[in-house]
């Protein structure tokens, strides 16, 4: 699936998006897989309360299922307006 990063999450991970092959069933499992990869992921995902996630461009929870999902995005709380 495609994993996208925005704002400081993008800056910490160093890429705006990447293709990830995963067997993770939930967002939380995907986060655990990513954190185990490299320190930059560990740094980005250190505090989940400071993060938001969208599945196929809809806001979701970290315990949401990834079944059928094609695009996952991680970002800090939004600051539009």
């Amino acid at each position, binding site marked *: 699936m495609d994993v*996208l990063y*925005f*704002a*400081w999450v*993008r800056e910490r991970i160093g890429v705006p998006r990447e293709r990830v092959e995963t067997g993770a069933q939930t967002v939380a499992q995907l986060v655990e897989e990513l954190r185990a990869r490299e320190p930059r992921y560990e740094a980005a995902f250190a505090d989940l309360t400071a993060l938001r996630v*969208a599945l196929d*461009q*809809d*806001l979701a929870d970290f315990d949401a299922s990834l079944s059928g999902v094609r695009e996952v*995005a991680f*970002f*800090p*709380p*939004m*600051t*539009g*307006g």
Partner: protein
Amino acid sequence: MRVVVQKEPFDLGAEANAFAAADTGMGAIVTFTGVVRDLAQGDLDVMEIEHYPGMTEKALTRIATEAQERWSLGDVLVIHRYGRLAPGDRIMMVATAAPHRKDAFEAAEYLMDYLKSRAPFWKKEITGTGAGWVAAKDEDEDALTRW
């Protein structure tokens, strides 16, 4: 309904006039315009706005649709810029038309409250001494509880 996400400046006056002219059956028209303030004590050079293309339009359209379902409204307009802005630049605007002023005001405030915390925009302030992401405010999240 019109939802616009663009890099280019927009003309508040031209948008307000066009919006008002298109919806002549309405008694009340409210506009809100957000302007880049220099929050970093006179030191702000650039406000950089990042967004999530695709999700942004989807989120704004949903928020506007919810406003139209919730209040007796005519047309709704949402414009939001991204990219590099300077202090004084207009970031975004919403406009609502309604038969009655209460609906136009409430719907505009609802749009703003949701747009602030639920549309995927992120602001970065670039000052003479560095750059930093604007933190979300608790009060903006709290503002949603009234709806």
